[in-house]
């Protein structure tokens, strides 16, 4: 099954890369950009046919290694 994992940095944690991109966009005249955050998307192909079980297994992987709970939140979407 195809699974998409989105890892997002917690709002209270600084994102120097997002801040730098926002500054560059402003330099190019796109002053309407109020905030930029750069996140991470991981695509997995997982052996299994029960979407609920695959969802739970990948959430375990997120807690174990894919996300750092100090910095990041995650969401898991099983797309079939």
């Amino acid at each position: 099954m195809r699974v998409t994992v989105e890892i997002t940095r917690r709002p209270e944690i600084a994102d120097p890369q997002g801040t730098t991109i926002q500054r560059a966009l402003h330099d190019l005249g796109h002053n309407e950009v109020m905030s930029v955050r750069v996140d991470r998307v991981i695509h997995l192909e997982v052996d299994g046919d029960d979407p609920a079980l695959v969802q739970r297994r990948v959430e375990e992987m997120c807690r174990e290694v894919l996300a750092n709970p100090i910095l990041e939140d995650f969401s898991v979407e099983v797309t079939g």
Partner: protein
Amino acid sequence: MSTAVVVFPGTNCERDVVHALNSLGGDAEVVWHRETDLSAFNGVVLPGGFAHGDYLRTGAIARFSPVMVEVERMAAEGLPVLGICNGFQVLCEAGLLPGALIANRDLTFICRFVDLEVVDNQSILTRSAEVGQRIRIPLNSYEGNWVDPGKIGRIVLRYVDDPNGSQQGAAAVANDRGNVVGVMPHPERGVDEVLGSVDGRILLEGFLHSLVPA
């Protein structure tokens, strides 16, 4: 009394650390990250570099290397565990130190001498120094910006000039017990006049003094 200096794939400061410790009277040797028995060693150093390519996050893959079971045991037993630069990142990912390290505030790789102040000398790294003492050693990192949302870390060295945005200016952080320390600048690069500094000696001497018979 001997020190294991762990090499992960991508570690690149292990020889500097072995040389520095041995030049100060230590007995350090390199061990591979797949080693599962460090019972012959009285302390361990995780040196700088790019363990496992820094993939996913710095230290995120290294924390699952087989040797880390032994590093966790030594930390729990109160033996000295020191992470330098990338090793600091590995110790945070492993949960042996609080917080995490993210990209420097200005997104620059910083490679220069920095001035540090000792703010706590109850740790294996700072025990030979005085509180308030200034130390000048090289910083060499891109992800040296320590964040600690829970504000639970014990800072033992602080940058005088805040080069990277690190929370409360932290350059080195200890666990409660003081036997596990992560330091972002490189004490092993400040042990000889020819390197431009000998200020790293007092830090590594603290580590060596912390080694006790197994």
